[in-house]
């Protein structure tokens, strides 16, 4: 089979998979299954990236999202009602507005994608992973390191937000600032 035709076929198949599984995220009764349908959608997009010669990014996406969706499934079991989907469940609001917004954004973006003229400069058949590595550890190292620092800040922030013991007492008691003693100026 022609390699171009094979790529077209694979991209179409994975694309349909990504769209259908993405839609099933919001159609299933089980929140746990929703997390795994989302993972399927990410895996399909990751496979498309591999077909598009971005093997490293595709595999990173699959690896990262598999971990994230597993954590999301744990959160579903911890917090959410009906994680197993044993009862029919519809937890939506402003359904018609959301549908119009979703279909509208699809039509506008798809129209732009089909109508707009893009330059035809395909990536050469060299090793894109090596090129990315040289970019990350060369010209764009500051950007790469900034992303790392941002993730560290997020880890600290997430722990501070989720910790039971807050600045003004236990989180379950609400974050009510204690009154100030006017004589001493200290908080009581």
């Amino acid at each position, binding site marked *: 089979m022609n390699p171009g035709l094979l790529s077209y076929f694979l*991209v179409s198949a994975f*694309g349909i998979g*990504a*769209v259908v599984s*993405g839609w099933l*995220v*919001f159609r299933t009764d089980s*929140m746990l299954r*929703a997390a795994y349908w989302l993972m399927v*959608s990410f895996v399909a997009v990751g496979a*498309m*990236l591999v077909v*598009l010669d*971005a093997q490293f*990014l595709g595999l990173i996406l699959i690896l990262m999202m598999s971990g*994230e969706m597993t*954590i*999301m499934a744990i*959160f*579903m079991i911890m917090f*959410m*009602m009906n994680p197993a989907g044993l009862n029919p469940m519809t*937890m*939506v*609001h*402003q359904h018609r*507005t*959301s*549908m119009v*917004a*979703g279909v509208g*954004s*699809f*039509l506008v*973006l798809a129209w*732009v*994608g*089909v109508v707009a003229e*893009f*330059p*035809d400069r*395909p*990536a050469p058949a060299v090793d*894109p992973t090596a*090129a*990315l590595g*040289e*970019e*990350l550890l060369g010209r764009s190292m500051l*950007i*790469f390191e900034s*992303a790392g620092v*941002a*993730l560290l800040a*997020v880890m600290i922030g*997430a722990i501070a*937000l*989720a910790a039971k013991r807050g600045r003004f007492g236990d*989180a379950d008691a609400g*974050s009510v600032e204690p009154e100030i003693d006017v004589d001493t100026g200290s908080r009581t």
Partner: protein
Amino acid sequence: MIDLLLVIAAAVFGIGVYGALSQQSFVMIMMGLELMLNSAVLVVVTFWWGTTGGNPSGQLLVIVILAVMAVEAAIGFALVTAVYRSRKADITEKLRRLRF
């Protein structure tokens, strides 16, 4: 091929918009946001593959988007935990004000 990829990305983005606007559960709203970012990854790789002549900066942009996805998930889960501790709320309808 670029047309096809952009239409697929638009469909995934549209589903994400629908999910983020329609769902009541916090985690389901986050899933809608994740789908939108998923679509952004696909669009960036599409343009990198088809229009930039293999410029590695395009791949770098995907790394930045992946970092944004991780940030969104971590802060989102932390906020869900904080809101549940303080208000016992797991859906948007249970919140009347943003201030704790």
